[in-house]
């Protein structure tokens, strides 16, 4: 893994991005705005599942009508995130919050697929109703908590001085 990061770090295009004055602010700003589109819509989907809001909207309406937009946001988020990483791989390689964020996104993804291919299959039975099955509500809670944690670890990546002591002892970045 380390050699992969070091290899990217030495690529001319990575160096060009890193040395450009505008690239970092532009990418980070687009990263935040696209996060709003993605995470903002997903948050209300999660809260619909939990039963906090939008109770009169049929559950299945949200995936069909809002997910294309949320996925558009996610796509832009992914591209800008990947470019940010590409431009400074060695800055993030030793960063605890970077790896935590990737792990949290992975778990959030697994939760999403599990929900979609198991729990959501029976949606017709509870589409209009106010009684959402426990599994679906749990999936909503897990998703809400995980994406919030992705936002938090995303912001914390800037604080390289605030990583846990045990992580620093591993000396990964050195």
């Amino acid at each position, binding site marked *: 893994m380390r050699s992969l990061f070091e290899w990217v770090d030495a690529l001319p295009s990575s160096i060009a991005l890193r040395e450009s004055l505008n690239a970092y602010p532009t990418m980070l*700003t687009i990263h*935040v705005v696209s996060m709003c*589109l993605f995470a*903002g819509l*997903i*948050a209300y989907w999660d809260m619909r599942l939990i039963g906090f809001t939008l109770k009169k909207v049929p559950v299945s309406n949200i995936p069909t009508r*809002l997910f294309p937009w949320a996925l558009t946001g996610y796509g832009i988020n992914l591209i800008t995130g990947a470019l940010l990483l590409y431009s400074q791989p060695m800055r993030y390689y030793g960063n605890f919050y970077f790896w935590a964020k990737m792990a949290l996104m992975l778990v959030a993804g697994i939760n999403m697929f599990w929900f979609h291919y198991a729990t959501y299959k029976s949606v017709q039975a509870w589409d209009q109703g106010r009684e959402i099955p426990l599994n679906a509500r749990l999936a909503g809670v897990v998703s809400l908590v995980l994406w919030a944690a992705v*936002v938090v670890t995303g912001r*914390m990546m800037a604080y390289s001085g605030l990583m846990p002591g045990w992580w620093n002892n591993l000396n990964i970045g050195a």
Partner: protein
Amino acid sequence: MLQSFFEWMQGLPFSAWMLEETWASPIIQCAHLVALVGFAGAVLVVDMRLLGRGLIKTPLNQLAREMDRWMIWSFVALFVTGAPQVLSTALKQYYSPFFWWKIQIIVIGLLFNFTIRRRVAFAEEGTLGHWPKVVGFLSIGIWTSVSVYARLIGLLS
């Protein structure tokens, strides 16, 4: 006058505490972003509906009434997590053009929301022609530019 007000904010014991306490600023910044996600979702669900996208099977005024509370409370959360940062970095904010643009557009956004956007979203649907689309478009533009300027305060000043 304005400058001495910002100097006064910068000099408060609370500001000194914020800067002294290692975790205070990062926690507040993370909370500001989580609040932003809540705010963005509440605004977008209605703005997309105004544009004729998104949850079109639900009556617009019903959706708008429901999202109204979420929008207001997440704005309160943005204010509560934004104000301490203004206090602790008052002079940096004072000298950043982006901060002033952000504040001005927030004021415009709030006025726009409570005078026009709400009225249009709460109205009987289909009676206002193309106006709902214009309003949805402006609202997305306003809050997006607030976010862009906000992010640029930290990056470019």
